[in-house]
């Protein structure tokens, strides 16, 4: 036993898979210690905030100390961030369509471009052939470049409590800086937010945990049922075998996933918790474990060491536990790992179809995919809403399959290189 | 003097195990086989028979490694040839090998004709299906096997037929020398006899020119081989004609082996079987002197000191023991 475990951990593939899985588990357990807010809390008003470091503007302005830094490239950066190359090209297009000769426009000369724009642009004018959306786009560009070349700084005003008048309380100069350590509210959203404005990274960690739990529960159920039925069919044989094989064949003929869909569908949504789904998946995916265990037990039963055990007067339970189970243990472990990873995939597929667990408590990897899909993250190019989820699913199943291949190489020396 | 089909001089090969230990499974073996002759190799499990068979082909792959010695097949010295050249121009054509338990290692999803196709195409890549099939048909006709077998899968064949088919696949390119490693040990007596008859017919018709036959079943070896080499712990300990080896063995180990023969012939019921006590030495560090010393009834102090050379007796006989021929004959006489 010790020797076997030793060998298992000498298999490179297993170790890599195991490390990935353990790292995932570590993150799942440690992350909530630092970020305590519930994974489904809506923090953002609006959809799909991109990943990044979010700094509270109010706190920044009111930071205790203001520093002045004279940076030579500050202006260029500011202009670039508000007026992109694409915008410049678009502005030129508008001006040309409006009637300005093309050779009079130099899009690299920001000042001249802005002057020309200000002189001619009319937000209410819809040039021939321009779509409504395009008109809106130009309105947006127009708004964003407003005051772009101003050197004035921004005036901060507060409402006087008595008169209700706005009174100037300060000026934010273009060279003013706040130290981010002085800003009270800074929030890192490494993966941005989703369509509801929820932090995707927090959600992803929680979802990975729940999906692993679903996999574990489903895998345990499927493996136990498969093991018990396979043992009974293989060892007792006869009529027991025939009836178990009959049921197994029924399950084989009906595609498991269709069955899964039907069962999920028939449970109302508010009864579908994560564990319920796990149980449903477990109860529909034991078939091939049972078949495989049965055929293994079948050949083991005729092995002479079982006969010898009988001749030594051992009772049936002991024969099953001591002479049969150890021989199929490695196999069952491998089957279990595969069951876990396929249950995670099954949950994901169910949830994508909208048949996963109810959506109010916990996220699962499948639900996250479902949301991303419904809110068209993939069409809108909001990659952070689905790519990390896909990668997590891939990573978990990949690590398990890797562990499995590693185990296979240890247990079937014929596959070793 | 007849043509020498295979000559091996001082061949030494070793396994390098996963733990980087050397196992000298073939230690300075020399042999020669003339045209039309069968050389038998006998010895107990683990003495290096299969390793010798593998080594004789001059094609080494890990964990087996060449150390020293020469292999000359029908006048062509293949020592030092590149492995790829050996595979392309020697294997299957000059010398062919039937591995132990090969018949149980056939890929069950392929037809017999496909195995033959593999062998043929390794040497004649241009051949199409029809050419391979025609070749296989005429091969099977020559060997007296039914052509239907070509279209069957291995599981559809009985043990005896499967083994004969394996032999046919091995000799597809009519090699000069055939090495058969325990070709009939897993078969019942009737199938065994058919396999032996097929091999014998191949020799008689000149389809193959010489054969090496490996088995631990001495009565079988006696009937198949012209000469017998007895192997012990990687070395040849006796080399004699089949008759001498069985009825007049010189080396104490051969003597012991021959004492374990049982055949259903009158008189043998009352002969006492002689078992050799103990186990062969570990080939990772074989003893310095005679390797059989631990188990030998006649061991002397000098046996354990230096390695014992192979002494030639007359033209076609050799044995590896410090005792002289007369001394050995005398101790055997006293024993009985």
């Amino acid at each position, binding site marked *: *036993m010790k020797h076997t475990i030793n060998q298992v951990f000498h298999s490179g593939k297993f170790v890599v898979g195991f490390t990935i899985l353990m790292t995932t588990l570590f993150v799942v357990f440690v992350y909530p210690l630092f970020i305590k807010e519930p994974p489904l809390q809506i923090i953002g008003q609006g959809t799909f905030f991109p990943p990044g470091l979010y700094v509270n503007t109010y706190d920044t302005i009111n930071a205790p100390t203001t520093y002045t830094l004279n940076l030579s490239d500050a202006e260029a950066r500011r202009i670039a961030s508000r007026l992109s190359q694409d915008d410049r090209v678009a502005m030129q297009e508008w001006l040309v369509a409006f009637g300005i000769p093309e050779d009079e426009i130099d899009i690299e000369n920001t000042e001249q471009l802005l002057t020309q724009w200000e002189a001619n642009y009319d937000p209410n004018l819809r040039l021939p052939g321009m779509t409504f959306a395009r008109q809106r786009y130009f309105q947006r560009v127009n708004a964003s470049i407003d005051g772009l070349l101003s050197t004035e700084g921004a005036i901060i005003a507060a409402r006087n409590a008595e008169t209700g008048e706005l009174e100037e309380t300060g000026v934010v100069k273009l060279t003013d800086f706040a130290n981010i350590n002085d800003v009270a509210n800074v929030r890192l959203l490494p993966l941005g937010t989703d369509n509801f404005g929820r932090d995707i990274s927090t959600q992803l960690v929680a979802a990975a945990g729940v999906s692993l739990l679903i996999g574990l529960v489903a895998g345990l159920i499927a493996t136990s049922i498969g093991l018990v039925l396979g043992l009974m069919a293989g060892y007792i044989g006869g009529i027991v075998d025939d009836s178990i094989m009959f049921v197994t064949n029924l399950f084989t003929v009906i595609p498991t996933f269709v069955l899964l869909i039907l069962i999920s569908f028939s449970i109302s949504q508010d009864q579908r918790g994560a564990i319920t789904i796990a149980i449903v998946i477990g109860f529909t995916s034991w078939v091939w474990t049972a078949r495989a265990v049965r055929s293994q037990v079948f050949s083991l039963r005729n*092995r*002479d*060491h079982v*006969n*010898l*055990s*009988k*001749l*030594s*007067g*051992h*009772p049936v339970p002991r024969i099953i536990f*001591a*002479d049969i189970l*150890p*021989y199929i243990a490695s196999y069952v472990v491998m089957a279990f790992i595969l069951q876990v990873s396929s249950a995670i995939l099954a949950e994901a597929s169910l949830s994508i179809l909208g048949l996963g667990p109810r959506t109010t408590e916990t996220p699962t990897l499948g639900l996250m995919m479902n949301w991303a899909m419904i809110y068209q993250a993939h069409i809108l190019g909001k990659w952070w809403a689905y790519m990390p989820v896909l990668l997590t699913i891939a990573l978990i199943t990949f690590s398990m399959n890797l562990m499995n291949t590693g185990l296979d190489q240890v247990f079937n020396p014929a596959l070793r290189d | 003097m007849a043509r020498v089909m295979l000559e091996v001089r001082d061949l030494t090969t070793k396994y390098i195990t996963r733990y980087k230990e050397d196992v000298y499974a073939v230690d300075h073996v020399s042999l020669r086989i003339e045209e039309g002759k069968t050389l038998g190799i006998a010895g*107990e*499990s*683990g003495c290096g028979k299969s390793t010798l068979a593998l080594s004789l082909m001059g094609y080494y792959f890990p964990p087996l490694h060449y150390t020293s010695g020469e292999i000359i097949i029908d006048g062509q010295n293949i020592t030092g040839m590149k492995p790829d050249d050996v595979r392309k121009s020697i294997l299957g054509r000059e010398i062919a090998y039937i591995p132990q338990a090969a018949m149980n290692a056939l890929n069950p999803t392929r037809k017999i004709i496909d195995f033959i196709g593999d062998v043929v195409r390794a040497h004649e890549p241009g051949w199409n299906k029809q050419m391979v099939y025609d070749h296989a048909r005429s091969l099977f006709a020559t060997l007296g096997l039914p052509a239907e077998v070509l279209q069957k899968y291995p599981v559809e064949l009985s*043990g005896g037929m499967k083994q004969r088919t394996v032999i046919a696949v091995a000799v597809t390119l009519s090699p000069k020398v055939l090495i058969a490693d325990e070709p009939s040990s897993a078969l*019942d*007596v*009737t199938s*065994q*006899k*058919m396999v*032996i*008859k097929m091999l*014998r017919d191949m020799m008689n018709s000149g389809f193959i020119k010489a054969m090496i036959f490996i088995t*631990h*079943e*001495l*009565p*079988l070896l*006696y*009937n198949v081989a012209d000469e017998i080499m007895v192997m012990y712990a990687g070395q040849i300990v006796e080399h004699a004609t089949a008759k001498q080896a*069985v009825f007049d063995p010189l080396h104490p180990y051969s003597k*012991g*082996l021959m*004492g*374990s*023969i*049982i*055949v*259903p*012939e*009158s*008189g*043998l*019921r009352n002969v006492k*079987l*002689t*078992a*050799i*006590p103990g*186990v062969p030495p570990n080939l990772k560090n074989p003893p310095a002197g005679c390797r059989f010393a631990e188990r030998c009834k006649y061991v002397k102090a000098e046996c354990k000191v230096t390695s014992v050379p192979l002494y030639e007796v007359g033209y076609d006989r050799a044995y590896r023991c410090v005792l002289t021929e007369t001394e050995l004959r005398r101790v055997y006489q006293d024993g009985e």
Partner: protein
Amino acid sequence: MASKTNLCLSGTGVTKVFGFGRNRTLAVDHVDFAFHEGEIISIVGESGSGKTTLAKMLLGLISTTEGEIFFQGQKRDISSGKKKKEYWKNIQAIFQDPFSAYNTFHKIDAVLLDCIKLRGGDRLPKEEKVKLMTEACSFVNLKFAELTNKYPFELSGGQMQRLMIARIFLLKPKILIADEPTSMIDACSRATILDYLMKLRDETGMTLIFITHDIGLAYYVSDTVYIMEHGKFVESGTADAVILRPQEPYTRRLISDVPKIYEEWDLSTV
């Protein structure tokens, strides 16, 4: 001589059918036999002739489809677990393939301790048990001290088969069925195994049933030989009568197919 002693194991019309419908195999077909106490019997047949199936029925490891088996003249009763255990004190086996006859997860000691337990020696003090095991191992020229705490796969085929004999030595059953005990080991170790089996028989006077396809072996060891073909006994009698003067064509063919050293091995008759 054999018929004078008491009947030990006998059977009438013993039959075993596996499967049904198109998969029906008649493995053993209405065989009658009478084995006497202290006799050495060989059952010889080609592979698939039903030898192992018959052995398993004799051992009570599988049920008979038809026919009766008698133990010491009485109808054998192994209907309950307890009765089976009692029966197995009297009849034991050595199997063909030593590599599959041991549970690879259990140490060698467990195999031998089981035997002591079956003989009712469960409560013996530990030294007493070790003494018994040491004695059994030394009977087959193995050193218990070297074997203890080892796993079966650390032994060679010949050593494993000898350990099987040590097991029988501890159990001292009235009947031993040896199913091809030497077919998986080389000719050299075969003599050793036979040696110990015969020595054990001489010491305990047990009835020894050899199951084999090796006619030479059957001839060498047995008093009585049964020849089996397709589940039927086609010929039986003393070893000399059956092997040297076979009556049935099947027996004759079988014997002529064995390579010999004194007579010509006629290859033309295949």
